[in-house]
């Protein structure tokens, strides 16, 4: 499993595009929003956590179709499916690799980009924490979506259509916790549910994703 993770990470880094592209996209979204809504810093400060969350979510979506596509095309997915390693483990490692290359950089970058959105002082911490807890769920749900659409030729658009509704609870609890944290309200409940969504996704979705891949490889 570790070997698989290392292999996936090395492939993504070597291919270049995927790693930096998500971050660049995130930056562009954050830059575009002030152009759209105007430069008033009080307005930006209010919507900053939400915008950062939506931006991170969209950037996450960008690299989803790569999770299985290359392996499916060159046949290594068939090899992985017949390998002694359970497919559920393979899927989890794929999601982990996606998180390390997409979710983690986004989480680290979000506080930096928050400066562009005149994020309140407390916001840096809260956006970082909620993204750190929430992005694993985004990667796992996305992996499930990618597993559903792996055999399709033009799966990209369909993938977004399937995955975005599934992202709603994570986005909602993530942004809500950040907002409550910034405003000094009681955040324990939403934070706990956000963590629950992440943990639940990681616990259950590998089985669903592995089932979807088995169906697609049949």
């Amino acid at each position: 499993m570790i070997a698989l993770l290392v292999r996936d990470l090395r492939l993504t880094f070597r291919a270049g595009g995927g790693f930096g592209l998500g971050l660049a996209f995130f930056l562009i979204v954050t830059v575009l929003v002030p152009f759209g809504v105007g430069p008033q810093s009080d307005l930006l400060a209010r919507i900053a956590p939400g915008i950062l969350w939506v931006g991170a979510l969209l950037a996450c979506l960008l690299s989803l179709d790569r999770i299985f596509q290359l392996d499916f095309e060159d046949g290594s997915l068939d090899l992985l499916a017949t390998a002694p390693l359970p497919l559920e483990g393979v899927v989890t490692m794929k999601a982990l690799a996606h998180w390390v290359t997409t979710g983690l950089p986004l989480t680290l970058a979000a506080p930096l980009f928050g400066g562009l959105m005149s994020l309140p002082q407390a916001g840096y911490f809260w956006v970082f924490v909620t993204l750190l807890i929430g992005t694993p769920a985004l990667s796992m749900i996305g992996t499930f979506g990618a597993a559903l659409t792996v055999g399709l030729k033009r799966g990209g658009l369909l993938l977004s259509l399937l995955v975005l509704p599934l992202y709603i609870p994570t986005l909602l609890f993530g942004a809500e916790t950040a907002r409550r944290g910034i405003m000094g309200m009681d955040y324990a409940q939403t934070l706990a549910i956000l963590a629950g969504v992440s943990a639940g996704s990681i616990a259950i979705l590998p089985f669903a994703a592995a089932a979807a891949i088995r169906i697609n490889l049949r």
Partner: protein
Amino acid sequence: MEDTRVRQHDDRWNWFWAWANPVKFMSWTGKVLPWLMAMTLVTLIPGLVWGFFFTPEAQGFGSSVKIIYVHVPSATMAIQAWGMMVVASLIWLIRRHHVGALAAKGAALIGLTMTAVALITGAIWGQPMWGTYWAWDPRLTAFLILFLFYIGYMALWAAIDDPDTAADLTSVLAIVGSVFAVLSRYAVNFWNQGLHQGATLSLDKEENIADVFWLPLVLSLVGFGLLCLVLVLVRTRTEVRMRRLRAIEMRERMRDA
């Protein structure tokens, strides 16, 4: 393999599952459908006519209360259709009865239409009552999310060529999707509380509703339910026929080749 076959043969519930055999399904639905259609007509039409023409104005609502007779039944059916899809998907995944998968496919468009009716009538009703067509009220938002789920589900059906693969993948999506749909339903509660505390826009319709309004509502609820049942059965029959047609065409092509 031998083992499962024997076990399936001895299953006490086989009389029940036999109803899902495509040939038997076609024959019993063919017999039942005319009766169901008649029952739909005698409940739906009187229910709607009663609701539209013979209900008084309600306190605070005026005549806009008449919208309830299309709004509430369609909203109920929108949720029921999703529930039916999940059950049918489970039947397909566990028992591999094709009729299950086809029934799930048939229910999707019905659910989508019902969700659309509920959303649109809700928006039109919201304008005079709350002064806005759309508010991010938890219930409204939940229905919008349900609408998105229906669209995704149908898009996945449409995108996959092989019918069995499509049935499998959409079933997995329906089950995972319903977990997330329920989660979203509870999520929007938190989210809206955070935005405007204590502002309750949702109406508790079932409570304190007088019999003059309640009886026609029950009648149209039953009517909508029967209508959906009829539509699901007809659509499933269509899908069963299309499947058989595909099989015959495939055999013809094999012979010609």
